[in-house]
């Protein structure tokens, strides 16, 4: 196991109260494995990714409880400078959503890609330069050697995302956290980026956590999927099983909401209602207020039920 997260609780301390954004999630990622973290906006998936890197909002964000182990090393007890020195960009790297704003406009790509390598003492001087060219070539930037002095605005969106990927994999991290890496790109480029991530994983064996709300993207890249709702993971399982036989009512509703070609319905099938406030969340199942299969028992926290090998869901219906 590359990553093992157990009962992670991340709280945001706001003026109006404590927002329990991530309220006890557990997950794991193995070598060469891609885990999709799927959910709607506000479900806590991005904050989960940030928690892994301990990049929470200064002052208000805090990991209240839980453990995060990377290759067995506990990350929650490390100091911030240790995190920057040893973990961030070195053993866990991040790729963000918008490639148009992820790169610093006033520095060359050569400088920006060499940065993590330099900061983590991977290479210096001439070796650094050749390493940068290598990694840019790896992400399919043509004529990388000639383009070291070019600036981000001289590249297309897809290329920029590749450059960000190059920055991320330069130090061959153990885990890549990709937060909506394709959302801001058009469909044809999306395919390229997904292929790139698959390539990287094949080449380096790095684990990937793919945070997305796009079930289609998750299907094409992930081995397993974890579905998040209101700060909790409601269902985890291999990607095929999740899509073929979703167990949790929320997962079922999500999949049902995806429009299919040939669908003759006039309206999209949306999930009625709103996610609950995470400052004062309901004690029982958080999806209960919107769940079509709601029972009285749902007022108590639901147990995690194992349905098959690697397939779990937290629902009273399955118990």
């Amino acid at each position: 196991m590359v990553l093992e997260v157990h009962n992670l609780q991340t709280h945001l301390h706001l003026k109006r109260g404590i927002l329990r954004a991530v309220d006890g999630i557990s997950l794991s990622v193995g070598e060469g494995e891609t885990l999709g973290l799927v959910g709607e906006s506000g479900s806590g998936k991005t904050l989960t990714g940030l928690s892994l890197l301990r990049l929470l909002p200064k002052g208000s964000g805090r990991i209240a409880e839980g453990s995060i182990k990377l290759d067995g090393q506990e990350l929650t007890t490390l100091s911030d400078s240790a995190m920057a020195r040893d973990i961030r960009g070195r053993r866990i790297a991040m790729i963000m959503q918008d490639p148009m704003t992820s790169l610093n406009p006033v520095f060359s790509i050569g400088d920006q890609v060499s940065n993590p390598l330099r900061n983590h003492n991977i290479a210096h001087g001439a070796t650094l330069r050749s390493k940068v060219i290598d990694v840019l070539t790896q992400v399919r930037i043509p004529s990388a050697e000639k383009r070291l002095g070019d600036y981000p605005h001289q590249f297309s969106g897809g290329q920029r995302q590749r450059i960000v990927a190059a920055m991320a994999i330069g130090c061959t991290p153990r885990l890549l956290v990709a937060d909506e890496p394709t959302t801001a790109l058009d469909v044809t480029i999306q395919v390229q980026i997904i292929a790139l991530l698959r390539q990287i994983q094949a080449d380096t064996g790095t684990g990937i956590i793919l945070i997305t709300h796009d079930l289609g993207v998750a299907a094409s890249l992930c081995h397993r999927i974890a579905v998040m709702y209101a700060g909790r993971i409601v269902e985890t399982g291999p990607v095929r099983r999740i899509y073929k036989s979703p167990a949790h009512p929320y997962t079922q509703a999500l999949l049902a909401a995806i429009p299919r070609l040939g669908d003759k319905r006039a309206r999209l099938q949306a999930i009625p209602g709103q996610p609950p406030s995470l400052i004062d969340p309901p004690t029982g199942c958080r999806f209960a207020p919107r769940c079509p299969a709601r029972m009285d028992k749902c007022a108590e926290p639901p147990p995690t039920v194992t349905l098959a090998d690697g397939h779990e869901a937290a629902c009273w219906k399955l118990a």
Partner: protein
Amino acid sequence: MLALVLRRLWQGAISILGASVIIFVISRLSGDPVVMLVPPDAPPSLIAEIRTQYGLDQPLVWQYLLFVGHALSGDFGNSYRWQMPALKLILDRLPATIQLAACGLLFSVALAVPIGVLSAVHRGGWIDRIGRIFAMLGQAMPAFWVGLLLILVFAVQLNWLPAFGHGTPAHVVLPAIALGWYPVAAQTRIVRSAMLDVLDSDHIRLSRALGTPERLIVWKYALRNAAVPLLTMLGVYFAAMLGGAFVVETIFAWPGVGRTVVEAVFSRDFPVVQAGVLFTSILFVLSNLLVDLSYGLVDPRIRDVR
């Protein structure tokens, strides 16, 4: 790039020409210079003689054309008061004013950048609060007063620096502080707000996510982005320094062009006023051009957009 420079120079030339016409007309409307050049008991014949000598009895348009004609060959006439070439009077003193304005600007930037950056990084903290008070003080205290205060403390009481004059690097320190004090407030605010913007941006967050030390993030990766809005204003502030130099030059007996031109205005010494305004406008145009060109240095996106 060349096209840009040429275009700016052309625009600058028009501004300078406009300024020279305005000054020419206004100074002649301000009063009769001749009565101020002769003793009060001078007979009308002497006054008429001098007026003719200086061509002041000619129609205004003809006077202007003569002025332009001579100016193009480098002749700005003799100063009425100093009886030496006005051009020499101005050019000899221009370097001193440029030196003063540049040092003043340097001082203000040297103060504004660290305070602005630290205020943004520790937003709401004590540095932020003190920085704001400090900058406000700068805006509340006029250069005249600051100059005298500096002389009193650093020259008279402590005897660390000279009270007046020109020549050694030590002589520039107090005048540069007196001159550069005022824009520190505005410049600090610009740096602070630009830094706050940048520090919030995606690429900075990514940089942090990749483990870049905070020190580098603030002083290299963020600051260079924040420099662009500051650079915009530097041209304006340099012009402000040129304008405000007169007060500081008088207080510190600094032999600059600001003093020369203002004294010439009071004594209606037209040739000196004209030459002075002309060269100050040229300086202003050139400094703005330099600032424009330097954007390309700092922000590569601009290099390709023309």
